């Protein structure tokens, strides 16, 4: 199955280089993510529109998008947004929905820990699911420049902010975005990313463990936690089978 890299035209051998963070990498990351970043726009519009529908001022919605840059968590926050603000519940919900960032960061560690500290921290500022997936695919092709994660994240941040602005200031006129299938774009992309990682039938058991744990968790646990449970189940199963 999908054993080869998605960019078949490009034959990059592993350069004898060292992990780094350069402006060229930032630019390359931004350009590579551009087609996908466009699909962030409708999600931003949807968020801005939802905020407008809850009478949250446009400036507050913009501040959320600019400072958090985390779609699923922001929607969860919007759901809990009322007077008086339930701050502890908000913080825990955001932690649960975003805890997967910890897993993504851990997966980047073998590469990023060899980048100098200040650059390593800035490269992680815009870490999210799509640019993580792109960076991991690039790493598979021999990429060593951590700047691509920053560049792709920055590009998506701009689009996310622009989408939020359109939605927050003009959302009422746009109607239901599901009509255009925009609400299925992210899951479709994630499904493709998963299949792109397929190497052999050894992958099957960890993948089934992840799916089963996530499915069970989505029925039994508070929102967000099934992602953590599923990810841990897949990781533990994969590591356990590795030694055999």
């Amino acid at each position, binding site marked *: 199955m999908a054993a080869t890299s998605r960019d078949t035209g490009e034959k990059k051998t592993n350069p004898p280089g060292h992990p780094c963070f350069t402006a060229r990498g930032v630019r390359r990351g931004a350009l590579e993510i551009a087609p996908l970043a466009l699909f962030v726009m409708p999600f931003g519009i949807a968020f801005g529109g939802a905020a407008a529908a809850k009478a949250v001022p446009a400036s507050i919605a913009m501040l959320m998008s600019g400072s958090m840059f985390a779609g699923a968590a922001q929607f969860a926050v919007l759901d809990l947004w009322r007077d008086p603000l339930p701050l502890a519940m908000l913080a825990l919900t955001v932690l649960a929905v975003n805890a997967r960032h910890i897993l993504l960061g851990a997966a980047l560690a073998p590469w990023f820990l060899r980048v100098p500290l200040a650059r390593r921290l800035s490269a992680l500022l815009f870490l999210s699911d799509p640019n993580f997936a792109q960076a991991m695919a690039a790493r598979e092709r021999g990429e060593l420049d951590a700047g691509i994660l920053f560049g792709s994240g920055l590009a998506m941040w701009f689009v996310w902010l622009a989408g939020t602005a359109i939605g927050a200031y003009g959302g009422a006129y746009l109607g239901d975005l599901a*009509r255009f299938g925009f609400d299925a774009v992210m899951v*479709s992309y994630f499904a493709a990313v998963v299949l792109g990682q397929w190497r052999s039938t050894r992958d099957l058991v960890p993948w089934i463990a992840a799916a089963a744990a996530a499915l069970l968790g989505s029925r039994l646990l508070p929102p967000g936690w099934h992602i953590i449970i599923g990810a841990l189940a897949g990781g533990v199963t994969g590591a356990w089978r590795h030694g055999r």
Partner: protein
Amino acid sequence: MVGDVTAVGAIMVLALVTLATRLAGVWIMSYVEITARIEAFLKYMATSVFIAIVVPAAVNGAPRIGFAVGAAAVAMIASRSALAAMLIGAAVAAAAKSVGL
């Protein structure tokens, strides 16, 4: 109506929580030696994050989301292009919506 000062303060706290999750993974791993087994753990865990988002969304969500994910999977296997898979997934979801699914 939430007051502006309260709202801005709360958003700053939530932004810090989010930032902490972005930085924590690499930081934690700087204290753990990365063996072959840990690499296998991380590799499967990374893929499993997406499995854990997609599978419950496809099973528990509206049927159209399930159709979209199925179509995207077939498109990915056939074309090896994530972009094509994404477009076909969205097209299937839009078509399903138009017939009321």
